[in-house]
């Protein structure tokens, strides 16, 4: 460990007595590479409680001990150089880049999507905040009145330590997998949401509203707890491409739906195509609770993301609705898991993927019914659309059933963009481009209609961009 315990104690004592909370001046960026020293620095900088510091160190040991997954795209995974990554950068430090450094294609996409100037800079990492303060203010007042906590994870830990400690890493323990261990060791940013019993949050909570927070962290950590009978819709990310010079993004998201609660979590991931997006997302649903993951994967070089739901209480229900668009050179390795642990639980997984040119989309899923989870039902539906003779799609579903009184269904279909449909649409006077776009839009319609309106509009524009020049 980096520093002798005595010095650590002195440090935390200072921060309590004198409120030296802004050590940014002294330390804004960790050295390259990963070590206990780096973990110690991150934790001390954030003035974290002892349990979190210990948690991080243990997680690092786990990370170092665990092998990389032997499944999935090993070729791409083996290219990640963990020693070449900077594991912590203060938000303000990210402003080092200028607008001129942002790649042309990203700027062009901002243009085409009609993203406001201020927001563009924010998304491109050139500005740390964008002017949503006015919107945020009224949202914040309403939330406070209801007793809803909506903070970035670092502030959440500072201001609501007991709550965070109670739930943090209970759904995704550091030992879960190598990348979850990595995130546990070096996490920074992400959201902490707590909705009190019976409270229904009327508008979707968007990470957007949290100004000046470390929203786009490389290793963000989000924890959402909906107490008994509470209801919340959380929206993360956005459809505009997120530009980052970092090559690895590895988040952990934990959702806890206590009895009767309802959580919907919507993400549309559109990282620039140099990013490895390796994310662990898992929810636990207690009696009569409902958890829904609405998950879109458009960007990144390689995404590995399998939103999971542990159906722990009787009659709990889980849904995963996802789309993936794999353009040239991209591999979207996405899927879903539903683990039925209690009687009469139900789950529904709908996955739609589009592989274009040399793109590859993979559905990797798991449905488990444990002994005793009688009366459980699950339906899995995977549809893959292929555009171009080098496009690739895989379906790897796994179903493990240890209970006889259950109904498990899995169906998958693979098809190419149909000549007949195209012919029909062209005979109606549409150009080939328009016709293709219309078919693709029809294909992802079940996903788009679940999105908040502004996202749906942006997603449609984005798909139009991705489909450009697909003729021939």
């Amino acid at each position, binding site marked *: 460990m980096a520093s002798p315990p005595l010095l650590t104690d002195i440090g935390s004592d200072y921060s309590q007595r004198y409120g030296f909370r802004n050590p940014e001046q002294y330390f804004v960026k960790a050295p390259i590479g990963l070590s206990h020293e780096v973990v110690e620095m991150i934790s001390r900088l954030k003035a974290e409680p002892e349990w979190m510091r210990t948690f991080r160190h243990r997680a690092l040991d786990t990370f170092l001990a665990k092998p990389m997954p032997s499944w999935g795209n090993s070729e791409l995974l083996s290219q990640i150089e963990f020693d070449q990554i900077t594991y912590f950068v203060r938000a303000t430090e990210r402003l080092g880049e200028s607008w001129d450094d942002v790649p042309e294609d990203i700027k062009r996409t901002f243009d085409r999507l009609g993203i406001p100037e201020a927001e563009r800079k924010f998304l491109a990492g050139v500005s740390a905040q964008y002017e949503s303060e006015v919107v945020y203010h009224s949202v914040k007042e309403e939330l406070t009145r209801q007793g809803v906590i909506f903070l970035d994870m670092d502030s959440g830990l500072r201001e609501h330590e007991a709550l965070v400690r109670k739930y943090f890493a209970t759904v995704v323990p550091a030992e879960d997998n190598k990348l979850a261990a990595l995130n546990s060791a070096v996490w920074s940013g992400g959201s902490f949401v707590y909705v009190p019993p019976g409270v229904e949050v009327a508008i979707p909570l968007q990470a957007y509203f949290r100004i000046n927070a470390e929203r786009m962290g490389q290793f963000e950590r989000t924890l959402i707890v909906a107490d008994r009978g509470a209801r919340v819709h959380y929206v993360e990310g956005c459809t505009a491409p997120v530009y980052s010079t970092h090559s690895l993004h590895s988040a952990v998201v934990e959702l806890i739906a206590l009895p009767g609660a309802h959580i919907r979590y919507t993400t549309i991931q559109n990282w620039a195509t140099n990013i490895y997006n390796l994310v662990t997302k898992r929810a636990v649903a207690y009696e009569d609770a409902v958890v829904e993951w609405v998950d879109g994967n458009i960007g990144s070089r390689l995404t590995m993301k399998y939103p999971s739901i542990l159906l722990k209480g009787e009659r709990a229900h889980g849904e995963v609705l996802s789309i993936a668009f794999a353009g040239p050179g991209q591999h979207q390795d996405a899927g879903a898991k539903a683990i039925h642990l209690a009687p009469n639980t139900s789950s529904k997984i709908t996955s739609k993927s589009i592989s274009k040119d040399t793109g590859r989309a993979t559905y990797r899923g798991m449905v488990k019914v444990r002994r005793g989870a009688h009366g459980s039902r699950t339906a899995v539906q995977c549809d893959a659309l292929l555009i171009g003779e080098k496009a690739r799609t*895989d*379906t790897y*579903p796994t179903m493990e059933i240890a209970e*006889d009184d259950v*109904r*498990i269904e*899995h169906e*998958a*279909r*693979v098809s190419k963009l149909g000549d007949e449909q195209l012919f029909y649409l062209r005979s109606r006077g549409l150009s080939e481009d328009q016709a293709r776009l219309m078919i693709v839009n029809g294909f992802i319609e079940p996903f788009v209609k679940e999105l908040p309106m502004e996202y749906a509009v942006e997603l449609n524009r984005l798909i139009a961009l991705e489909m450009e020049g697909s003729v021939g």
Partner: protein
Amino acid sequence: MSAEPVLVMPGLEVERISDARGEPAALRAMRRQAREVLAEMVLPDRARHLWRYTDPRLFVPHRESVGAVPTEVRADWVVNGSHSATALIAGGAVRELELADVARRAGVTVTDLHGADVEETLGSAVPPSHGFVEALNTAVWQGGVLVRVPAGVRLAAPIELQIVAGGSGSVATPRVLVLAGESSSFEIVENHLCGTLESSHVLGISELLVGPSAHVRHGLVQRWHGGVIGHLTVRARLARGAKAQLSLASFGGAVVKVDAGALLEGEGAEVETCGVAMGGNRQHLDHHTEHLHSAPRTRSHLDFKVALTQAAHSTYTGLIRIAESAGASEAYQENRNLLLSADARAETIPELEILTDDVRCSHGATVAPLDAEQLFYLLSRGLPPGQAQRLIVYGFLDQTLRRLPQTTRERIEALIAERLHSED
């Protein structure tokens, strides 16, 4: 990740086997090569789905012996009904060969594989690199037949192979090679039986080379006793316009793994795989199927049904792979599991890997209990519960058998009925 070396078996006496059987040089070379491949292998990684649910170590035999062989040919090993040819493999040797006149006149041959000239063909569908069980079999197989049906020959009656597992502690390593000439058409059925009630290993390989426009119906009917730990690998290579029907019927054994598949290598080739598996007691059944499309306009169809009682455990993994070179292909895959007891367990992993866009492909899998409505209907017609349940299970499995040749279908149906009645 497992890094244990597979085996350093004292029984890998490749030379001794070749000497004793007076094998041609090519066969001896093939055994030596397989032994070398095996020496480099480690046991499969359990994280890979193919071995996720079955411990590969179970299939590593601890003895070299092919075991004591009953000298008499038992009545239940004899094939009844009409047939074009029969062969009996027991105790590591071909015990009987019989060829009907009509087949002999047509030029059909069924011969002992130990003396055959099969340099170009043996191992071409299942090479030693396939896996450790296959490398092991290729190094030390004993008791094999070569079936050759010349071009244009169509056989009305089936060719029947009776393959008997050995006695206590033995390891049977049977090997079957079927060469179907251009435009030939016939049925061949392998019956895997037991000699004794004692525990033993069976590690078998069957290869089918189906020539252009040939049509082969291959059946694998496995009814071992409860002491057998068995692994059977079946691969058919299909040339241009060839058709194959692979049917699997698994009833017996303590731990059974079957790896069956087709390589669709010629344009327009078609394969249909039909499987039924019944598990009871504490049986562990693991079936893997593969349809690999590498030529244009190929088609595959798979229907695999599993019914489980008591504490039986079944794993099904199926792969459809359509290569970039296999445009305009179609593939369908369906796996249905019926769980008849709270202690039964089933896993199903139907996989698709599609590398080109001009395809039609779908798969489905279900796991469900006995349909309460069907049961209610039958009970309302006055059937006792036991009989009603048997009828539903029978109907569930029988749907898959519909496309099989009549006599084989009837034989498998009889085995299903027998098994259903023995469960009471």
